[in-house]
């Protein structure tokens, strides 16, 4: 009977999709974009009340430890004022030195703010869908940041929605460097909360607490975007704690640094893009 064959047929179809998805990423990329675009208004409507409720909860929480929070902020403010002083001095010094070396500054980046309307939620994918897409000027490969630091990069773009592959996803590979020694490495997500640092030169040792920033040499990210700190070094496995709290984001900023054309739309699957330097960004100092 035809009815009996339905389940085996669908099971087979699912398996075929899995194999196909492994072989040809592009087909499903397109499909995902279409689905995301179609579901975006619905997801936006669903996400709104949840976000409102969450901010309400946080509000109530905030009222309870107002006093402690105030103390903490006062302390932090005192510390930041010192830093401000230092920063001002360095800024002047920097400007002077740049003048001396005829350094050409990078253009100012453009920010696109977007609300997160869906997160993957599953146990084996780490990405979010945001409510901005091609219409707003989002393109593949752009960096997504919060106030704290890098979140991930734009992997797929539809008309009104875009998918951001988070730092922690299995397929996320981001060129980074140690802020102090300027040594380069690749930060690879592995589904856990703390991505790993790969391909660090053997003679370089990373210490817990060391700052990690993006490396511009791949031409994928602008250099110097804060990423996180080295959390642990355990028998050669270096883990990074991202600055951005990926589980509690409501909004992200997608940063258009004007590095357009770095990742040709649709020319290659993004996960692999991070590995090689496709376009050499002219280094103005040289």
């Amino acid at each position, binding site marked *: 009977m035809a009815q009996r064959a*339905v389940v085996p047929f*669908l099971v087979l179809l699912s398996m075929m999709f899995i194999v196909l998805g492994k072989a040809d990423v592009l087909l499903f990329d397109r499909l995902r974009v279409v689905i995301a675009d179609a579901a975006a208004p619905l997801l936006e409507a669903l996400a709104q009340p949840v976000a409102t409720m969450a901010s309400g909860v946080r509000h109530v929480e905030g009222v309870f430890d107002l006093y402690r929070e105030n103390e903490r902020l006062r302390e932090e403010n005192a510390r930041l004022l010192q830093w401000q002083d230092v920063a001002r001095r360095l800024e002047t010094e920097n400007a002077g030195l740049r003048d001396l070396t005829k350094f050409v500054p990078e253009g100012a980046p453009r920010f696109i703010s977007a609300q997160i309307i869906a997160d993957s939620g599953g146990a084996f994918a780490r990405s979010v869908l945001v409510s901005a897409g091609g219409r707003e000027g989002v393109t593949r490969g752009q960096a997504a940041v919060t106030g704290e630091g890098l979140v991930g990069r734009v992997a*797929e773009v539809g008309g009104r929605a875009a998918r951001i592959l988070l730092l922690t996803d299995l397929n996320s590979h981001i060129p980074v460097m140690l802020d102090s020694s300027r040594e380069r490495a690749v930060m690879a997500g592995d589904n*856990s909360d703390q991505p790993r640092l790969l391909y660090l030169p053997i003679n370089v040792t990373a210490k817990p607490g060391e700052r990690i920033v993006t490396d511009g040499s791949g031409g994928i990210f602008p250099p110097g975007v804060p990423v996180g700190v080295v959390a642990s070094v355990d028998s050669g496995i270096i883990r990074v704690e991202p600055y951005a709290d990926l589980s509690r984001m409501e909004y992200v900023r997608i940063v258009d640094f004007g590095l357009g054309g770095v990742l040709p739309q649709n020319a290659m699957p993004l996960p692999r893009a991070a590995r090689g330097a496709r376009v050499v960004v002219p280094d103005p100092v040289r």
Partner: protein
Amino acid sequence: MRMALFQREAGGFPNKLVPSLTTLLFVLLSVVPLHIPGFAVVTPAFALMAVFHWTIYRPDLLPPIAVFVAGLLLDLLNGTPYVGTSALSLLLTRTVLMGQRRFFINRLFPVLWAGFLGAMAAVVIFEWALVSLLHGAVLGVRPFVFEAALTVASFPAGSYLLARAQRAFLMRV
């Protein structure tokens, strides 16, 4: 108002779609970001709850194709490169459960809950093994365990909503 309108045509067309529609709604629900402080990136697998519930109580109204579409939609919304994984695991859940559903009908809720725990455990182990195989490396089990625990913990809420929908729309269908 709406409910009355639906019930008047008992046995009618729209009511029969309730299982499929709630399953799709639960798929959407499982990707909506819950910004609860301290909550991890993982959210409960609502889609599995819907498939579990309807397979036990009204398998006639949740055909395999609806399960397949729901799984596929979930995979595409998830953004996982392994499209088809959820479709496959939901279909297998339905198939296995079809043989066991008589056992669960008219049992107390704890029995149902325990059954769901078993289903969730099987699905999570299956997905973990499959994705590890596809990815070519053994994945950390923590997010999977966490997802399972979270889903089992929120099963009463999901089950309550589905039972309400069933009582409201499918009493006479």
